[in-house]
Structures are given as structure tokens and as C-alpha cells.
């Protein structure tokens, strides 16, 4: 098994560490590769798009030629996890903020997103969040977080916050507005790994 983490920008090492912890807990092993350039994504069995600045990530995914590879990977039905900026990049449609920066979206999830749905950094927060696949609240960290404001029929809502969707899945794609990689609770990464093992 090979799990790729897009490493152009953002909290890459935190995702790698969270994966290592989650794999250790379930007693399974996989190789993890960080990806900055084209030619690696399609070798992976699963992929993570980390948190970072979506505007920057989107531009470099195109410049480096990785965006098309991620679309191909999606067509093969392989699991993809996007957190925060990742959730934006996976979407089909963005709000005015996304459009005015000519943001490149991968468009593989039938969702419409608001870029800074929860405000600026001073409004960033952590809170106990109810996720449909967990039996107790998860301490979710929202940093200048986006929100999903519209989704198609194939999208399953996993959590809502203030009337916006903050966790959703469509087939093997999982999109989160918060950062499970910043806490030690591995349950969300486990849920993602269940799609792989």
C-alpha cells in the first residue's frame, strides 16, 4: 500500500505523523510518500490533500501538472482525503472569493464551497463536533475554515456546523473543513484508512 500526501505547501508533516499514528494503532502498515511533482500520484493507492492556502496550492497543482493526475486517480475510484484547503480544491464550484482569484478547482466532488465561511483567523475556533460515523464528539480545529454550502445527490453529509456542511463524502472522497491532523485523536484518519484496507 502506498499513501501519497501532496506536499506543495501546508501542514504536510502533520498529516504524515497522523497517518503513522493511525496505522500503528490499527497494526497495519503502508508506505507514505510526499508529493511535490508529477509522476507519483498515480502510483498511490490513496491520496491526502493537506491544509494550506488553497489559492497557492491550486496554482502550483496546475503549474506542476499534478491536478490532472488527481482527476485520473479519482476516476480509478481510489480514496482521496481533503482537509480545509483540500476541501476547497476538491469542489466543483466556489463562492465569489474563490472566483475572483481565478482559483483552480479540481471539480471532482459535487459541492459548492465558501472559502472563508467561518471568518478570519481571529474567528478560528476549536469545538466538539458530532460526526455521523463517530459515537462521541471529535475536537475539531477550524482555521480560517471553508464550508460546503451546496451539494449534489451523491454527496453524503457527515457533519454540519452553523448550517454549513463541514464534513462530507462522495464515494471514496472524504472532505473536511477542519484539521484532524492537528490533534492526537486518530479516529477521522482511521475512517479514511477503512476505505483503503
Amino acid at each position, binding site marked *: 500500500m502506498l499513501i501519497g500526501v501532496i506536499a506543495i505547501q501546508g501542514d504536510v508533516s502533520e498529516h504524515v505523523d497522523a497517518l503513522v499514528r493511525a496505522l500503528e494503532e490499527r497494526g497495519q502498515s503502508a508506505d507514505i510518500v510526499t508529493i511535490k511533482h508529477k509522476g507519483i500520484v498515480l502510483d498511490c493507492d490513496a491520496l491526502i490533500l493537506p491544509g494550506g492556502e488553497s489559492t497557492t496550492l491550486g496554482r502550483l497543482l496546475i503549474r506542476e501538472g499534478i491536478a490532472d493526475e488527481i482527476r485520473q486517480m479519482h476516476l480509478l475510484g481510489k480514496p482521496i482525503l481533503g482537509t480545509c484547503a483540500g476541501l476547497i480544491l476538491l469542489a466543483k464550484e466556489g463562492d465569489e472569493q474563490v472566483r475572483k482569484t481565478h482559483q483552480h478547482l479540481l471539480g471532482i466532488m459535487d459541492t459548492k464551497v465558501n472559502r472563508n465561511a467561518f471568518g478570519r483567523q481571529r474567528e478560528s475556533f476549536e469545538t*466538539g463536533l458530532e460526526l455521523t460515523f463517530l459515537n462521541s464528539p471529535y475536537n475539531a480545529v477550524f482555521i480560517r475554515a471553508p464550508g460546503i454550502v451546496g451539494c449534489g445527490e451523491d454527496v453524503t453529509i457527515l457533519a454540519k456546523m452553523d448550517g454549513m456542511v463541514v464534513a462530507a463524502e462522495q464515494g471514496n472522497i472524504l472532505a473536511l473543513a477542519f484539521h484532524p491532523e492537528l490533534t492526537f485523536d486518530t479516529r477521522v484518519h482511521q475512517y479514511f484508512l477503512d476505505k483503503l484496507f
Partner: protein
Amino acid sequence: MVYTRIAIKIKLQGLCYKDDVMELEKLRHGTELIKRGFAKMQKGGVIMDVTTPEQARIAEEAGAVAVMALQAVPADIRKAGGVARMADPQIIADIIDTVTIPVMAKARIGHFVEAEILQALGVDMVDESEVLTPADHKYHIDKTNFTVPFVCGARNLGEALRRMNEGAAMIRTKGEAGTGDVSEAVKHMKQIQGEIRALKGMTREEMTRIAREIEAPVELVVETAQMQRLPVVNFAAGGVATPADAALMMRLGADGVFVGSGIFKAEIPEKMAVAIVEAVNNYDNPEVLAKISKGIGAGMKGISVDTIPQDQVLQTRGW
């Protein structure tokens, strides 16, 4: 911070159901996790100094992860002399309205009211910066009192850990701002990395002695030793002027790069901005760096650090 909660509530009324508003009571703002987490999202990125909304747009278009709003870039501050203060709040507000990426701004060392004003404006991170004229020669800002995260400059491990102890969520090398001479940033990065390496394998007793010597809290020294890196994100700053400079700082272990005068004092800012962003993503590939560095015009003229009179050195501000 009561006002932040009110702000969200107002925004929500038009947007969502009543029962969701109840959720807000449980929100925790401005925690260490959130402040340090914000800095982590900047890793692998370039943060560019800008003085106008137009420059901010160029920076965003080039792929900057954030912009630093200033009245003048450090090279001009150096030239102008006089007292350098926080930028005009109107300019900062205009820049905030122009870009979607985070907007940072500088406050004078110790000037907690400038920092409060920046927080009230909605700035995403405050740089308590030696580039501005210090407002207090004894105390830095108590950054734990703020919801907004802070970045601070450091020349060595002791300085970095003292700033963290005051609540800084991110550290950058001081370098020597506004010179276009990268040598001081190199010196400070190597100094910090070397001091961290030297902690490896030390007993608690030895680390206690080091903590006393470098005037830093022992718990932070121990944490740094265990992690073998600074416990917060550490960027390079102060003299980065070319794609090669940016790549050099990444090779030395920086988590990302601040570019001050280097972009908008370059011959063709748009090209220099894109090239530096790409250099940070390709810092370990000389062939790609060669390609990126071609045809982008001249870098800022700059001044060699050795020729700066001692009383005009910025890095010795703060302690």
C-alpha cells in the same frame, strides 16, 4: 473575546437555522492549537511584503501564502530614517478587502496597542517586528493576551524560545531586513539549527544549565531537544532577494520564507514573485532552479551588511 462571537452571530442570522447558533457557545477561540495551527498552514510558502492593494493582488496571483501589509518596504524604511510605525489602518483594511489569502501586519516591539488595533482590523497574524522602531526597550508584547497569533524575529535559540514563552506562534530569523544581503539570515538560521543539534543526547541536568545560559525556560529547551526542531513553525526572513536565496534558506531547514523588499524592489516584481514561489517548491532541484531563475530581470540592488553603520542595524532591536 466577546466581540468575535457577536460578529459570527450577526453573520449567521441570515445564513442558517436557529438551533445551530446554540453550537457557538462551545467555540474556543485563540487557543495555542489554533494559533500554532495557523502558522503550520503557511509552511512551504512565501509571505510577501506589500504596501498597496495592487501589490497584494500581484503577490496573491504569484502564489504567496500570505501578504505582510506595510507602510513602506524595509529598504525604504532604512533609506527614510525617522520613526517607523504600524502601517496606516486604511491601507491595511484595503489590502484585507482585496485578497483572499491571509493578511499580516507589523506592530512595533512592545506596542501592544498597535497590536490590538491590528487585531481589531481583522489582521490574521501580527509581526512584532524589529523593522519598526521599538516602542519599549525592556518588554516585548505579552502575546498570550491576544486572539490573533504572533510571529517574532530571533537570532538564536534563546531569543526564539523567549518569544515563544511570551506567546509567539511562529518564529522567523531576523536576518538584516531591507538589505537584500542574505548572509545574516543564513547566520541566524545556522545558529538556531546548530544550538538545537547540540541539545541532542543531553541530560535534563545539562539542559537546565543551557536554559540558564540562553535565558530560556527549561521546559521549552527540553521540548526543542526532543523534537529536534523549534516547537513552532520557523521561517527565514531578512535579506532574501532572489529565488536562489529562498532555496538556500529552505535547504538550511526553514519552513518557509518571508520576502520583504526583494519582490517590489526587483526590476520585474511579477516575475520575481512567481520565481521565488516556485523556487521554494523546488528548492532541492538545481536544474529546475536554474530554469526558474532565468529571464526574471535583476534582483533588488541591496547593500552589503558590512557597510551598514552600527546604529542603523535593525537586528539588534529586541532581545
